[in-house]
């Protein structure tokens, strides 16, 4: 009994210590977290050791001064973790392998990043790591390394990935970046409208983004001749964002649509 109690206590201490290391890392105290994870690893169970190695590798990505050698050390740790299991740590490690290829190397390797993301999606499609990877994979489709490609084809390829989005937060992110790419490439704004409407319906937007999306839906609705929809979204915007700088301009737009301006427009 005593041994069991001691074991449970020590496990609790180990868990608390791991949590403290992650907390330190959430505040970017990389040195402190690294020391903690290294200490944990010495006494950890196999599962605890994997968590500690994952923590070490993640911390290496922000320990200053950040050197290419340090990133390479992190990459090796992630590779070992990703190739030696299918657990959450392995998935997280594969996601980070994609991120290293995408943003950490002196010369980015988008093909390698896409390969890691696609593998994660194929093997663990619904996991949070795969869903996060999906939002980065869409960017690689939308903005290929070779800028000579046709924008419409890039958007079409990215739209196909929507089928892989299993969580509302992922769906929302994907619709937003698709609408934004359509605007950026100067494709017909009407093509962005379904994405904006879908993003709004998913109710995942933070307040500043929601304000933008409501205005965007209304503005594009005017362009496609859907005045009823435009009015509805202008009015929703005015009701939800009484202090937004665009209030006067939206009031003018509503006047332009006819049918009067809602009370309280302008201050």
């Amino acid at each position, binding site marked *: 009994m005593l041994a069991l109690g001691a074991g449970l206590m020590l496990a609790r201490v180990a868990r608390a210590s791991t949590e403290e290391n992650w907390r330190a890392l959430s505040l970017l105290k990389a040195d402190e977290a690294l020391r903690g994870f290294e200490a944990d690893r010495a006494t950890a169970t196999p599962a605890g050791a994997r968590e500690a190695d994952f923590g070490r590798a993640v911390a290496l990505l922000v320990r200053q001064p950040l050197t290419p050698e340090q990133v390479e050390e992190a990459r090796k740790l992630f590779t070992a973790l990703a190739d030696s299991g299918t657990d959450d740590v392995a998935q997280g490690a594969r996601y980070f392998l994609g991120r290293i290829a995408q943003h950490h190397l002196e010369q980015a390797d988008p093909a390698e990043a896409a390969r890691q993301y696609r593998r994660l999606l194929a093997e663990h499609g619904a996991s949070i790591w795969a869903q996060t990877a999906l939002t980065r994979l869409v960017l690689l489709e939308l903005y290929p390394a070779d800028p000579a490609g046709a924008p419409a084809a890039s958007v079409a390829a990215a739209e196909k990935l929507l089928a892989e989005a299993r969580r509302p937060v992922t769906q929302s992110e994907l619709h937003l970046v698709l609408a934004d790419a359509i605007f950026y490439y100067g494709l017909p704004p009407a093509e962005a409208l379904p994405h904006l409407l879908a993003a709004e319906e998913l109710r995942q937007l933070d307040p500043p983004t929601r304000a933008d999306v409501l205005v965007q839906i209304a503005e594009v609705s005017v362009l496609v001749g859907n005045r009823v929809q435009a009015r509805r979204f202008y009015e929703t915007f005015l009701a939800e964002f009484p202090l937004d*700088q665009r209030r006067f301009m939206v009031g003018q737009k509503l006047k332009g649509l006819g049918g009067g301006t809602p009370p309280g427009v302008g201050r």
Partner: protein
Amino acid sequence: MKLKQVGIVVLVLGYAAAAWLVWRHSHRATGTERVTIRLCHWQLEGTVREGLVAVARRYEQLHPEVKIELLVVPENIYRQWMRTQLVGGTAPDLIEYTMYWGRIEELAPRYFTPISREVAEPNPYNRGTPLEGVPWRDTFLDGMTGPDGYNTLMREYYAPTIAMFTMRLFYNRTLLREITGRDEPPATWREFLALRDAVNAYAKRDGRMLSTVINSRDNSWWLAIPLLHGMGSHFSPQLDHDHSLSLSYWEMSLGWLRGEWSFRTPEVANGLAVFREMGNASQPGFVQMRRDAAMLDFLRGHGLMLCAGSWDASSLRREAPFEVGAFRLPLPDAKDPEFGPMMLGPVSDGSVQTSTPFYLNKASAHPAEALDFLRFLTSVEGDQIFVDVSQWLPAIKHVRPTDFSQRFMPFYDGYNWGPNSYFNGTGTEMTMFFLQEMHRMFGPNGSVAAFQDEMERHGSVYSDRDLQAHLRDSRVAFNTDDVTDTARLRVSGETDRLPASPALLEAKYYQTAREMARAVQRRQAAQEAHP
């Protein structure tokens, strides 16, 4: 037998050690000593310092266990001082900083604590007020959506704000009466120009050194932002590619890179023409003058008006030996014979944007207490105390401005395309280049064309620097988000947000990189065509 006893002793010791570790992890040391929270700022204007002191003293009454120490560091050395303190780990718990000084993407993840979770909860100090139960962020007049409140790149709320400002022309009412026989300031741009001519004639007649406007390098910055933005409002829809009725940093920057706008764009050039008139109505050498020196000039009666922000209003009220009035610079309207055809309509004072933000230092030894003070400072009671003493405009809903500060309330019923102005262009480097070269517009030999030529010759050097810094900072922010969001995910297990930067922001990174590569190609082609 002996071995068994040793085993039991080891087990008991192990149990005791584990129990002690658990206890240590779950109990914070509790002391009876008073906690000291240090806050640093640079606000030496009028009674602003006293305003902050008044809030601190009230908080100490409510919390005798906490002492609030306020450190005032002069503005001209503040940034360097703050950096040194942050790097050395000796910075105060609460730090005033503004993203207008740049590099917030680099500073924030390293040194400041995001407070997104906290601002989603009600501010307990608003109990018994109309803001009871309202999420803290929604108690701010701008919903904390200003650039310091909500950092779009980091997708985090950071700094609660305590005030709001507008740019105004303050005037010597006694002198105005003497010159024009009237009390009222000009109501239109043409009236302003007529007043300038009257001042010049008066000065010549009396042999006095008198300027229409006392200006400074600092305040011309704040004047140029709304002026160029307002004058450009007729053109702005052409840059609004995402149909949000607001120009984002990227629309402004990528538009510049693509050549969609420049300082020769007719509407922007009109803004420069009005800015030139303002500069020519100002005292010679103002482009080198700091705002404190300019205020002294005004107080000594060397000018009829002072170009300044409402932040200086209480200083003027306290120091001026004459009656001071204030008015909004009347920009040309749609009826103006010269600029009218390119004006959309009335121009607003800008976004509802609150300011004077305080960031929570990541290295604070007492983050809970520091955050609690911030809650009080930005409660209805706290902000009212501050506003009453400082004479600044409030940042919090249901806080009343004083009778004196009421006159500086912003004018919102006009066109406004967001916080990004043509003046700021692509960022800090371009802003500094504008300020460095704006002298080319002023004086008898100055012209808008001379300024435009210089911008055309060298502007891209500075815009490239801005955008390269932006790409670098973005990569740092993405990496930081990956790491901190993963760490939070490991601790909390929440899956309602993805452990990464918003994909929309990463999309902007790719768009910027593409446009920069294209701009380089275009320049090379142009160079080859005209070596």
